[in-house]
């Protein structure tokens, strides 16, 4: 055998090996693109590569049999096949690349759109926070300024009664008295409105607090009321949760005194507080509190209405109050990242159920930073 033939055989053998490895590698590509329109083209390419490999082995045989004619014929075929092969690879590469770049453009556009949506959302949120703050500022200023003339009506009414009582006569004095009482009611309304607007105006820190202590304190304050009505508050041990202290106190106080207030005639009021841990699908791990009373209850159709500001279900002469207490409760619970709702049965009692997050949560639009 000639030296040239031997070198040629070794070169072809290495070529065949390389081709074999490359053909095997296409398996990886096929795995990546499985299920895409490219799978077929790459599959064909793979088959072609193995055919080519067979051609190499054939060439090796020809080298050994040393048939000059067959060798030149095979050489021509290999040149053509090689060029066709490169052509195929380049075309495949081109389709893949153009798709990739199209995907990149779409991705870029999508990102851009997302950025814009985010920007709009942020802007809306900012505007909303601002208008909310303005509204609260307005309520605060309005109620503050409204209180002023009202105080004068009452004070001058007092003076009128005191200094001209006799000239006024019985009817006159009664009118003045009615005027003063009306002014007093309006004053309470404004005070409550002010308290309502202050719930969010006064951003307080969240601190881990023992709610049991707060509730005990509230019950201490309500002691006279409890004795007068022979009422009672029964409760589960309350947990320690991250809350705003004065707000939590107000929430517990409003709900307990609410339960005591709407007492059935001749039935000593009992407020039962129960607690359980629940998993809220949207809000995560929560603590659920239930304040159940044995009072007059309410028609379930009013379950949402009673949380509205200045909403009352009874006449002033039956039960006092302006209808702000529960709106404040709702505002406090929502401000803590929880939910509140009410259930009632007329003549049997009412139930107020609210949840508070067990862990500290970042609240959107909370005024902690202000």
């Amino acid at each position, binding site marked *: 055998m000639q030296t040239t033939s031997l070198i040629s055989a070794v070169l072809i053998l290495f070529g065949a090996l390389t081709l074999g490895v490359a053909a095997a590698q296409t398996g990886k590509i096929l795995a990546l693109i499985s299920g895409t329109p490219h799978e077929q083209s790459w599959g064909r390419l793979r088959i072609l590569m193995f055919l080519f490999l067979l051609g190499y082995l054939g060439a090796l045989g020809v080298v050994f049999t040393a048939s000059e004619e067959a060798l030149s014929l095979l050489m021509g075929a290999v040149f053509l096949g090689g060029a066709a092969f490169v052509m195929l690879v380049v075309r495949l590469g081109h389709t893949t690349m153009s798709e990739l770049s199209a995907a990149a453009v779409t991705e870029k556009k999508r990102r851009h759109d997302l950025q814009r949506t985010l920007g709009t959302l942020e802007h809306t949120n900012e505007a909303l926070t601002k208008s909310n703050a303005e509204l609260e500022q307005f309520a605060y200023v309005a109620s503050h300024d409204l*209180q002023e003339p009202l105080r*004068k009506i009452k004070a001058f009414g007092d003076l009128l009664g005191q200094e001209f009582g006799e000239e006024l006569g019985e009817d006159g004095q009664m009118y003045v008295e009615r005027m003063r009482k009306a002014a007093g009611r309006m*004053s309470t309304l404004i005070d409550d409105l002010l308290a309502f607007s202050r719930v969010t105006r006064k951003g307080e820190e969240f601190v881990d607090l023992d709610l049991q202590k707060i509730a005990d304190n509230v019950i201490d304050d309500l002691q006279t009321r409890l004795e007068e009505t022979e009422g009672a508050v029964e409760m589960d041990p309350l947990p320690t949760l991250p809350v705003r202290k004065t707000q939590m106190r107000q929430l517990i106080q409003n709900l307990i005194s609410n339960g005591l207030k709407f007492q059935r005639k001749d039935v000593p009021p009992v407020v039962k507080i129960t607690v359980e841990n629940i998993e809220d699908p949207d809000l995560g791990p929560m603590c659920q509190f239930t304040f159940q009373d044995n009072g007059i209850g309410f028609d379930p159709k009013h379950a949402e209405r009673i949380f509205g500001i200045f909403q009352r279900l009874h006449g002033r002469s039956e039960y006092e109050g302006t209808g702000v207490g529960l709106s404040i409760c709702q505002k406090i619970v929502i401000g803590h990242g929880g939910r509140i709702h009410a259930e009632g049965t007329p003549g049997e009692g009412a139930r107020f159920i609210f949840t508070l997050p067990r862990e500290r949560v970042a609240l959107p639009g909370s005024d902690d930073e202000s």
Partner: protein
Amino acid sequence: MKVDELVVLMADDDEDDRMLAGRAWKKCRFTNDLVFVHDGEELMEYLHREGKYAEEGKAPRPGMILLDLNMPRKDGREALREIKADPKLRKIPIVVLTTSKAEEDILRTYDLGVNSFITKPITFDSLVTTLETLGNYWFRIVKLPIEE
């Protein structure tokens, strides 16, 4: 100067409130006069005996100042800060008498050295009681640093 002769100086821009306070003060039957200024600026003029208060005897040193917080030109907070920063004036007891119930106002004015903070009483009777209590406390119970 005797305690009975000390005047009470009230700074309030509200005419109705000045009138009501005047009536109520009369009901309390103190010998002390209640005099009025209309805003913080006038209050400072009175205390420094400037402008229309420059004339001798026109502005007797008050034994107590009743100070409204929200007033035009110079409000009660500014006037309070100036008075409490002035070594000659800071011994005069100042009682804030305002419509405000805001916690920040209460904290801020006590921070500035106010002696008491009172939210304006709503009824005329409670106004009389408040002024009576103030008069009794500052002119009869406590000893005031009387100068001049």
